[in-house]
């Protein structure tokens, strides 16, 4: 079974801090994704990566950056955290580039910015 591990389940930070969310997958998947999930808004794609050091903006990249130095690890960075970034963050990975490849999700990080 694919395992996607997010480093923290719950995180509390202060406004203006630089925040790192880490995600590791153990199945050698090419693609990795970061989403945020908010009540009434569903899942929204922040960034995705289709290879090491490659990244593409999703639907809501503002205020975020990402890093993928190794194939198994995809980091989401909040450059200067703000209260409107309080949310549940979900990491996912998938194999290859075919449309029929499902994404495998971690358990999420619930981030609160005070």
């Amino acid at each position, binding site marked *: 079974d694919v395992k*996607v591990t997010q480093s923290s*389940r719950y995180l509390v930070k202060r406004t203006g801090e630089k925040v790192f969310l880490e995600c590791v997958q153990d199945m050698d998947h090419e*693609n990795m*994704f970061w989403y945020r999930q908010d009540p009434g808004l*569903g*899942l929204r*794609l922040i960034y*995705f990566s*289709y290879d090491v050091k490659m990244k*593409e903006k*999703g639907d809501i990249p503002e205020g975020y950056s990402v890093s993928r130095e190794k194939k198994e690890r995809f980091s989401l960075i909040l450059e200067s955290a703000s209260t409107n970034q309080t949310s549940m963050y*979900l990491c*996912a990975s*998938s194999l*290859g*580039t*075919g*449309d*029929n*490849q*499902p*994404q*495998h*999700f*971690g*358990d*999420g990080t*619930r981030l609160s910015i005070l």
Partner: protein
Amino acid sequence: AQSVTQLDSHVSVSEGTPVLLRCNYSSSYSPSLFWYVQHPNKGLQLLLKYTSAATLVKGINGFEAEFKKSETSFHLTKPSAHMSDAAEYFCVVTRTGGFKTIFGAGTRLFVKA
């Protein structure tokens, strides 16, 4: 362009009765469609996927879905609900190239004893 609409934000059933969660999609080409389930404070888990091999797709935990091209629907069903099925369910379609994925808004399933 692709889109997906889950027709019900909440569905409530009694334990042992059938479940129907409705999903309509829009796609300019033959889509790949998925259903995921999310239990509280958990990530999304794949229930089943449609990739044009067969129109009736069987998934885990007794769920299945039927792809109906003429109706542009991909409804999720289960013959008999169990208390453990209470969760949020997402219908998903992939965009061209497979990198980007469109999620429905979700349907929360309540199961009454």
